[in-house]
């Protein structure tokens, strides 16, 4: 029986294992050094905040693995020996494989800041990071202030976590406005306001210079390039993540920033595949980046590689870009591409609407010439994935999107509707006279 070994029990590796099991009878082993069982990394913040217990982050009950004949090995892989098709673990044990899937995910970036390895300095990625934060910042007496370095998704999550225990937080963001490398200015500005509303001390355009240690060698303060020294008990480093592939340096597997793979998720070495955060496409697919550290792409790569391994060789073809996030109380969804002013394409034009009372806004990107709809960002309004996916495939123009916007609304029942406000602003800006059509189940469920 062919033995499939998967390194990493995150969403990519576990999805691959599940789908290989669905489609075959192969022997499957998952190796992980992090936890005994698969858990959802995305939910770690909720454990610290007391919304959940750790066990709630585990999507499958513990009997699931045995029942589905997925063997779990807890161990750290030191080396991959592809000549003999085996893995050597840190405890000296070896595991032979016929096919190997590497799904080791990411690790937090550190950019060589002085003091970055002091006790009290940490990232937020793994279960171990969560345990460490619980130890470093159990309450606001132990942790008088925390400084978070890096204004991305993990940074704002960490700020929210610490605020949930009333710990004062200073948030150092390199950019002049939060996440404005990704979000258009209006949206980024709205999040800035929201961060301040949550009593987070947001310092824009500010960089970390050094982390200072106290007499016990623990972090006690940071200095910034604005000449400030900020006293703190905990420093959160959340300046992005990069592939967790150090153990592969001398393995002969081709590496870039991540593990280089082709569209079949194959590495340069036969029978070794890489999926999830640690995989790097030779060239980005469409406008996607070569490395995508996103939950759902991990899933998709897992689904795809499972097909290939089960004899149905399939290219990895992620469809239209989409994503979502939550910034404190603000829900964000995006479908298609809406670039920030910094990354904007030449032909891209934006329409931006923001409600005058609520923290709700929408940005629609479309082609200046052809009016083709390119993408949408929404804050505080949920949208229907299927509808936007369809409109993108059908290359609808922006007028169509405005006219049928109500079909795409995914907010809970009885919520206030904003389509009329949105469309009327669009009309006045672009001289159109679109009136939004009533929501139609028929259109929503018609598979064009």
């Amino acid at each position, binding site marked *: 029986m062919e033995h499939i070994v998967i390194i990493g029990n995150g969403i990519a590796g576990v999805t691959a294992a599940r789908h290989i099991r669905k489609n075959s009878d192969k022997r499957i082993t998952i190796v992980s050094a992090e936890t005994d069982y698969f858990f959802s990394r995305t939910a770690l913040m909720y454990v610290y905040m007391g919304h959940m217990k750790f066990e709630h982050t585990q999507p499958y*009950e513990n009997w699931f693995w045995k029942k589905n004949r997925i063997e779990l090995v807890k161990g750290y892989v030191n080396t991959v020996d592809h000549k003999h098709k085996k893995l050597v673990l840190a405890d000296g044990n070896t595991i032979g494989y016929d096919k190997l899937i590497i799904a080791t995910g990411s690790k937090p970036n550190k950019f060589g800041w002085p003091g970055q390895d002091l006790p009290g300095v940490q990232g937020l990625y793994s279960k171990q990071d969560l345990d460490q934060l619980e130890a470093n910042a159990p309450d606001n007496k132990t942790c008088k202030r925390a400084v978070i370095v890096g204004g991305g998704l993990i940074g704002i999550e960490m700020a929210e976590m610490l605020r949930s225990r009333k710990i004062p937080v200073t948030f150092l963001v390199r950019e002049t406005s939060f996440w404005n490398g990704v979000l258009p200015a209006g949206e980024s500005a709205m999040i800035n306001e929201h961060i301040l509303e949550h009593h987070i001390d947001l310092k824009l355009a500010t960089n970390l210079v050094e982390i200072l240690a106290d007499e016990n060698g623990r972090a006690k303060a940071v200095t910034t390039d604005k000449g400030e020294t900020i006293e703190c008990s905990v420093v959160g480093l959340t300046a992005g993540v990069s592939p967790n592939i150090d153990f592969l340096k001398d393995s002969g597997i081709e590496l870039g920033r991540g593990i280089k793979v082709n569209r079949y998720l194959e590495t340069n070495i036969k029978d070794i595949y890489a999926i999830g955060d640690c995989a790097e496409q030779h060239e980005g697919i469409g406008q996607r980046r070569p490395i995508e550290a996103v939950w759902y792409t991990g899933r998709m790569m897992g689904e*795809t590689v499972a097909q290939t391994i089960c004899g149905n060789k399939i290219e990895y073809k992620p469809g239209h870009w989409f994503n979502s996030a939550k910034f404190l109380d603000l829900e964000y969804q995006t479908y298609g591409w809406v670039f920030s002013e910094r990354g904007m394409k030449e032909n891209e034009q934006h329409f931006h609407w923001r409600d005058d009372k609520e923290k709700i806004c929408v940005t629609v990107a479309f082609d200046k010439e052809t009016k083709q709809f390119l993408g949408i960002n929404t804050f505080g309004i949920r949208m229907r994935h299927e509808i936007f996916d369809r409109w993108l495939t059908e290359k609808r123009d922006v007028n169509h999107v405005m006219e049928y916007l109500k079909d795409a609304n995914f907010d809970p029942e009885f919520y206030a509707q904003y389509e009329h406000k949105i469309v009327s602003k669009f009309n006045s800006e672009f001289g159109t006279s679109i009136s939004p059509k009533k929501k139609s189940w028929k259109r929503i469920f018609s598979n064009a």
Partner: protein
Amino acid sequence: MKAIQNIGIAIFLIGLGIFAALPFMGSFQLDQSTFDEIVAEKRIKSELFIEDMQQNVVGKEFTGMIDLSSKISKALDDANTTHVKNKEYKKKIYTKSSEMASIIGKRSGTGYIANNKGMMWFLTFGLGILGALMFIVPQVVTLGKKGIKNDGIYHQSSTGQGWIAWLVFFFLISFYMVLYFGSEYAVNWTYLVDPISESLSGNLAGHWFVYGFMYCVIMVVMAVRMYIKYRHNMYQLVRTTSVLFFQIVFAFLIPEIMVRLQMPYYDFKNAFPLDYDFFFQWNLKSLLDSGGIGLFILVWGVVLTVVIVPVMVYFFGKRWYCSWVCGCGGLAETLGDPYRQHSSKSLFSWKVERWLIHGVLVFAVVMTGMTLYSFFAETSTVLGIKTSSIQNTYSVYIGSIFAGVIGTGFYPIFGNRMWCRFGCPLAAYLGFVQRFKSRFRITTNGGQCISCGNCSTYCEQGIDVRAYAQKGENIVRSSCVGCGVCSAVCPRGVLKLENGPEEGRINPTEVLLGNDVDLMELVNKK
């Protein structure tokens, strides 16, 4: 703000403390004329009991119900034992000693509690309401900006199955034990609400009136909490208003007013088989004896169960009943909201659930079949089994212990929908309709799910919502009561409760939306 809240807790605890102490307090003195009245009303023919009571109870003053009730139950038991021994069955008293004590206690209360009803109401209900609101209302500020605020739920003793939760657990269970099995200890409570009862039905309050009134008060206070906690979520606000309205108007006010108008006591929204004794002989008789209104209720009760309930479930899902109208649901969604996360999500629990709830439904239907057969065939047994013993078994074990003691008592530890999920026969019936013939579903938004598990954690019905959401599959489970909290707590906008065409409602998918069109075609071909 914190200070106001702390004072609120203190005031609340004082009110609760006095309320909890009442069953052991008060003085009772039964005078001769009252006793004669009771003997006449209850048609007591046992001279042994009457003598015993004359000697040991009448004219004497008792402090606390324990003192009085032990005397009454001894007199009653002794008398019955002797009558049975002498085969004097005509003289045997069939009123239970607990009920006898509660009847006598109600009419013999003297002293401060019985004579200062208004003041005592204020010291119990009044302080409880005031204190609770002082704790709850400042949350407008302390919770911060509107949005999902579940911070610390698992860190707090009260909501995280800690010692406070266990105290509440024991308190609630004791309360329900008194209500169902020791109503004589509720006598002092009935004094508190006598004025309210008299203004509604014209009668003095019994312990069920205490319960009904308290139910409404608790729901109102905890609904204020819901309005604050979910102030960003219009679905929750509308739904909370709806359950509140149906509890106060339909379950509480209308039946009381109907009594005042010499009509039968009836809750128009309480559908069979949740209303399990609707077809019991005594109820049918009382309805048939009540003229036009009785007949109307009879027809309404049947139409409600056979037509209205399933048709509404077809259009809106069982939520229209379970989380918009039902009293049990109403309490679960208000008082029970802080505990919703404790429902077990394991596959094992789901198996238990299916056996239990459908078992209760079968029990209720069989019992009702026997009841109706007995009624029309004018016999007390079916196939040699006494109908009344089946009815009593159901009333005690399902109607009282399961629905009441477990149903609400278990809130703080096992979650707020134990009864609705594992026991309610009406929910089982609605569940069939919802699963197989309904427009309702919880739509999963394509590939947006990140498997965080908030939805599953906060599902009061123990549905592993995430298991469906992460596959991009809609949720059409029979047990879903449509409370809408999974959708509310989702950080990525993945879930939406909606009523739509039946086609496409159930959508098993192997591959996430967005992943490779060819692959999807391939999977769909299989």
